[in-house]
């Protein structure tokens, strides 16, 4: 049935090229310029989908993004896109599509049995039943409901295409390129303003592409549109963006838009994203998004073959398709008649024009007289019949006389709803207009004007004038004086709509076609008290389908108003929300997915570590070397044990560059540090470092680190890796907001320095060998907590004698560009000493052996006293957090406090996150004494050790408790001990 419904000529399609496509496994042909819907209709395919609940057969209803019925699974494999609107899919060669929500086939869908059960499946039926037996809900009923619902299938595979984001700025954003939008863009563009014109469709022009009877400035409207587009293209200050839908309005003149860059191609071109998410910042905007035609609610209004009247014109004029041979029109306004005339001109047999209005305009009547068709005024279409395709309509005239007319196309028009969703995204509510029987925008987002059909101005001439004026005003607001010029002229079509919210008749009259919400469901909701339109929506799902009620809402809301006996104005309409058109989730992510989800920070020695066999671990955004596996090592624990032993017995080297480093200078730098740390720094001698602890304002520990004094007015402090940005922010707050009177300057120098820990009894030997005469490391010259700056090997060096491992240790820093070379130099100097690289895992083991607190203990809920650091809190000065650290709850003796523990059976393994219980106590919350924060196998001691927070912890040292991990099923008897397992006197690090 090739091109069954395609007219022999006309339309905005390129007949010189043929595009092949497949629907439900059958091959068809279409042309460039077609949508999937127009190509299907051209091929005489009327049945394209099944509805959500009753699985009713459905065809193409509209020609635009409001389509509720013709939803397909587009493409195959990982590129499958469920719920694609055939009316919005631009045809390409090789396109494949499949109908959805049916089984086993579109023609024979078992789910249609739901339609038979529909007396039970009314709105909200599931709330009233399926309660018994209770286990049945999850096991039986819910899975059934879920499978029956749901429309199309996602591929379940990772999306193979790429996506981008982009930012754009303009003086004037014009949304929509119909006559009103084009006029707005021309006026603003000619004045010199920076204009962006976004058009959702692949072809700009709006309704002008679809109406053959329009003239603008005394020319065919399409010619005018093409000239306008040419002029806009030539203006350097104007950007026309086709295939770009504005989907959201956000604060401060920010708009979201989605550009379909490669969707009209079988696959995006190399380097091209599939879609691009635009954030557009506009001084002003002009909403010229047109209007959506409203269905009439009558029995059988969902049957394939029933279409929106203006869509029938679109197919005819733009796509040269007349989707029926014997047609009828059902309308309550003048616009429906334009479809009648267009159908007649296209050669279709017009069986009847049924107008609900008793009276129609004389000019129309006169012109209709020439059609020679049946004209029924004050009448209605009471029902349709015909199974999977329209065959007959039942027409009732003003006298109640019933007639059955055979036809395969019924064009219906219930009036027009301005597409004003975007005007309400910031909370403005639309206002009901009796004149057009629809909501019009009232207040709008700051800077937005609404023009043309979107503003309820349905006449082309008036829309052009509105658009033009808005364009000039918007340009003027941006400081561009528009040249004096007249708006383009056109005549205004009439509408004269007389609303009908529900046409009496037997059988299902659909309000929301996709969700199968019927007029009866609205009545039921009313009866059961779901009377606010928002409750109506939630109870019946009216307007919650993929079209978001663009066609259905007003019909449902107005019907509710009728039932309530109140004006529509009072009853109102539901809130519309972004995205105005559905947007692929991947588009919002853009580049930031997979490996690129978050940036990766690499230290200067990253490649060096990799070359040396490092495995890496994520620490915030950093990658850190976790351990360095060597051939023959069975698992990571082998490597870590070797690394720890190497440090404790010789010397190890570890990249510690990721710790935050903040440079603090100024006459008041010392005073400043005194206020942000619990302990004192003002008197710290130059050339010395000190461990410091910061509290939050609420008295809990914020972070720890070392502070080194490099000069009288110069300190550098370190933060934990994870907290670096937070501490910088906190210190900036202190400096700028709390104490602006202090002379203190802060700079993050984390990135500037590569820093390596050199730890172990041979660390001094190694460094001395490497540094030679550049620096003397003798203990008395450079003692524990010493700090020095000097130059060596052509670079400045910062040397700190600090130790996390508890061994004699140093940290050496050079400008990061030299970091890799430093690592190599360290290894070279350390070679003869057996120097070993170690990673964060060994570092962690050694800090546990040494009882140093780290991230697991600095959990944001511990106080200095909890961690055994209470004595650091100075009583000689005030500091951030001091006041609230004294609250009852923070000094309560029942708090859990820092201890060490070890298994009584040395072969037993400990488990992080285990809780402490008394021996013999029931595992209950009441008996919970605390938990293990950090555990490790200690190569130094030859058994597992742990750190924990325990109620009355320090007082329990020597007691035996159990560390119970109910998740892993372990229960280990442990002895509570000091958290310092190795060298508690601290002899090693001072040697």
């Amino acid at each position, binding site marked *: 049935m090739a091109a069954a419904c395609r007219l022999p000529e006309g339309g905005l399609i390129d007949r010189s090229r043929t595009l092949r496509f497949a629907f439900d496994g059958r091959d068809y042909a279409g042309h460039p310029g077609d949508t999937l819907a127009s190509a299907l209709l051209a091929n005489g395919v009327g049945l394209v989908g099944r509805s959500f609940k009753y699985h009713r057969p459905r065809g193409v209803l509209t020609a635009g993004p409001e389509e509720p019925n013709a939803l397909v699974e587009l493409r195959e494999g990982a590129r499958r896109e469920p719920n694609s609107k055939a009316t919005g899919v631009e045809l390409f060669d090789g396109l494949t599509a499949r109908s959805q929500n049916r089984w086993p086939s579109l023609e024979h869908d078992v789910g249609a049995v739901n339609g038979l059960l529909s007396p039970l499946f009314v709105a909200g039926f599931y709330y009233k039943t399926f309660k018994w037996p209770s286990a049945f809900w999850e096991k039986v009923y819910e899975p059934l409901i879920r499978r029956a619902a749901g429309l199309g299938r*996602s591929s379940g595979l990772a999306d193979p295409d790429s996506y981008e984001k982009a930012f754009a700025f303009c003086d004037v954003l014009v949304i929509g390129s119909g006559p009103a939008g084009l006029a707005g863009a021309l006026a603003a563009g000619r004045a010199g303003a920076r204009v962006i014109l976004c058009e959702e469709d692949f072809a700009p022009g709006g309704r002008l592409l679809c109406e053959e009877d329009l003239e603008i400035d005394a020319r065919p409207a399409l010619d005018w549109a093409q000239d306008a587009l040419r002029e806009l293209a030539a203006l350097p200050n104007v950007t026309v963006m086709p295939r770009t839908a504005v989907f959201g309005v956000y604060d401060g003149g920010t708009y979201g838009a989605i550009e379909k860059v490669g969707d009209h191609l079988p696959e995006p071109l190399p380097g091209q994203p599939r879609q691009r998410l635009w954030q557009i910042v506009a001084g002003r905007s002009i909403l010229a998004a047109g209007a959506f035609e409203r269905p009439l609610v009558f029995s059988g209004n969902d049957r394939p073959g029933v279409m929106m009247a203006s869509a029938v014109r679109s197919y005819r004029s733009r796509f040269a398709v007349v989707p029926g041979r014997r047609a009828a029109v059902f309308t309550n306004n003048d616009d429906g008649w334009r479809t009648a005339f267009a159908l007649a001109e296209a050669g279709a047999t017009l069986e009847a024009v049924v107008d609900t209005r008793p009276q129609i305009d004389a000019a129309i009547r006169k012109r209709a007289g020439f059609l020679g068709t049946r004209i029924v005024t004050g009448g209605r279409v009471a029902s349709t019949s015909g199974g999977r395709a329209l065959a007959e309509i039942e027409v009732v005239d003003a006298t109640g006389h019933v007639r059955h007319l055979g036809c395969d196309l019924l064009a219906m028009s219930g009036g027009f709803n301005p597409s004003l969703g975007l005007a309400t995204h910031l909370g403005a509510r639309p206002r009901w207009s009796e004149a057009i029987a629809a909501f019009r925008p009232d207040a709008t987002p700051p800077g937005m004007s609404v023009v043309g059909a979107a503003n309820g101005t349905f006449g082309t001439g008036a829309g052009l004038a509105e658009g033009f004026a808005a364009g000039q005003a918007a340009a003027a607001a941006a400081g561009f004086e528009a040249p004096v010029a007249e708006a383009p002229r056109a005549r205004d079509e009439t509408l004269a709509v007389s609303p009908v919210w529900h046409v009496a008749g037997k059988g299902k009259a659909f309000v929301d076609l996709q969700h199968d919400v019927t007029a009866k469901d609205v009545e039921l909701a009313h009866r059961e008290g779901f009377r606010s339109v928002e409750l109506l929506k939630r109870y019946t799902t009216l307007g919650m389908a993929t079209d978001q009620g663009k066609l259905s809402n007003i019909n449902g809301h107005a019907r509710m108003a009728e039932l309530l006996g109140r004006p529509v104005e009072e009853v109102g309409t539901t809130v519309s929300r972004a995205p105005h058109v559905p947007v692929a989730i991947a588009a919002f992510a853009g580049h930031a997915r997979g490996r690129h*989800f978050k940036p990766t920070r690499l230290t200067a020695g990253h490649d060096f570590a990799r070359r040396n066999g490092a495995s890496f671990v994520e620490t915030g955004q950093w990658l850190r070397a976790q351990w360095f596996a060597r051939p023959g090592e069975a698992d990571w624990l082998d490597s870590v044990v070797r690394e720890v032993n190497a440090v404790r017995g010789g010397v190890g080297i570890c990249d510690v560059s990721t710790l935050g480093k903040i440079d603090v200078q100024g006459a008041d730098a010392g005073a400043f540090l005194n206020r942000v740390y619990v302990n004192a720094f003002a008197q710290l001698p130059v050339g010395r470092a000190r461990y410091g602890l910061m509290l939050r304002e609420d008295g809990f520990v914020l972070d720890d680190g070392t502070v080194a004094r490099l000069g009288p007015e110069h300190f550098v402090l370190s933060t934990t890796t994870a907290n670096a940005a937070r501490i910088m922010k906190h210190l900036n707050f202190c400096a700028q907001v709390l104490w602006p009177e202090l002379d203190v300057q802060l700079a993050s120098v984390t990135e500037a320095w590569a820093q390596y820990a050199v730890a172990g009894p041979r660390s001094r030997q190694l460094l001395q060998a490497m540094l030679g005469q550049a620096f003397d490391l003798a203990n008395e010259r450079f003692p524990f907590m010493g700090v020095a700056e000097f130059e060596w090997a052509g670079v400045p060096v910062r040397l700190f004698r600090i130790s996390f491992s508890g061994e004699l240790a140093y940290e050496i820093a050079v400008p990061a560009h030299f970091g890799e070379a430093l690592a190599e130099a360290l290894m070279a100097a350390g070679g003869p000493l057996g120097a070993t690289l170690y990673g964060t895992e060994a570092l962690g083991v050694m800090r546990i052996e040494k009882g140093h607190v780290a991230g697991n203990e600095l959990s944001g809920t511990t106080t200095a006293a909890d961690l055994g650091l209470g004595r650091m809190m100075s009583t000689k000065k005030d500091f951030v957090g001091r006041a609230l650290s004294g609250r009852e709850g923070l000094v309560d003796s029942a708090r859990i406090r820092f201890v060490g523990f070890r298994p009584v059976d040395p072969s037993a393994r400990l488990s992080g996150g285990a809780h402490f219980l008394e021996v013999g106590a029931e595992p209950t919350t009441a008996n919970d004494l605390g938990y293990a924060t950090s555990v490790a196998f200690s190569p130094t001691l030859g058994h597992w050790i742990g750190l924990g927070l325990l109620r009355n912890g320090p007082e329990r040292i020597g007691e035996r408790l159990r560390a119970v991990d109910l*998740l892993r099923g372990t229960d280990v008897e442990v002895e509570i001990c000091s958290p310092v397992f190795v060298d508690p006197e601290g002899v090693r690090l001072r040697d």
Partner: protein
Amino acid sequence: MRYSIFSLAANALTGHRRWKPTWRDAAPKAGGYDVVVIGGGGHGLATAYYLARNHGIRNVAVIEKGWIGSGNVGRNTTIIRSNYLLPGNSSFYELSMKLWEGLEADLGYNAMVSQRGVLNLFHSDAQRDAYVRRGNAMRLEGIDAELLSREDVRREMPFLAFDDARFPIKGGLRQRRGGTARHDAVAWGYAGAASERGVDIIQNCEVTGFLTDPDGRVTGVETTRGAIRAGKTAMAVAGNSSRVAALAGFRLPIESHVLQAFVSEAIKPLIDNVVTFGAGHFYISQSDKGGLVFGGDIDGYNSYAQRGNLPTVEDVCEGGMALMPAIGRVRMLRSWGGIMDMSMDGSPIIDHAPVAGLYLNAGWCYGGFKATPASGHCFAHLIATDAPAREAAAYRLDRFERGYTIDEKGQGAQANLH
């Protein structure tokens, strides 16, 4: 109760013309009430229900400024769970879980409680330790918790990003009894059951002030529909807590923040549990209708507008694509926002207000939907007996001043970090 498959079938035969309103739409009674509950959200309605059911207090009104369920109960991502860490929380949320488990039978209304399991993923060893600690705390409280390995997770959800991930999945903590419930139906079910027991549900009635006696004791409310006297007045207004408290002349340790949520177009079943990403702000489940319901972090600035901005939308979807690249071509259908009562320690308050005669239920952050039954239960207990329910005993207002904050996340006194 009155709803069953039989009543449904019988009504089907008569064209569903005999159904009565699910709840009575009442007007304020001139004589006033024993208890006026401000806020027709889940918590307010549940409170009224349990006042009537558990304490025999039936002369109760619930006052709602819009339509019932128009607040957060009608806009949350429906997750219910009791996988809390701290003792003050876990007993309370577990009470809630138990009430959920019996809710349908209790109310005679199918709120579609679906215990499909909640899975929290972790991505580092430290996170695993933290989840093990939490799971053990749950088990000590008698709450179910399981530790899943990376391979366990892969077996169940092969479409998560296991390869080329920025933060590889290392495993997860699962609560099988957690899941979802049909949010709106929770409000309707409580409303219906409360109304049936005599509670007046008054919609389109906004509290604009408080009536007080000369001692300053609250004796009722001033509303857009006139003054309403009350023996006791209780507020359960979630995101509007600070505003209503201001009417009574006090401040709360609460900031209002907008949280956005998202739903995709309906698709056939893909995700059969609730999953949260441990290395980004993203959580997701699939509604019975087929929509992927997901969310992430709050926008981060205080707000009373029920909408947010693009950066957060992007952040959430980035999390989604990092975890679940299979949803890339599924389209976001709708986004919305709710105003949350973010407390300064992330935990709620159920206590006497600083003003006599007024009772306070607030500070639910983004986690109060799951609390609905227990919140109503415990708040009703407090109102009826003037003593805190055992499970909610930690939710005192003076804990901030006294230093007994219940800070699950360890973020301290900054509302938008909880």
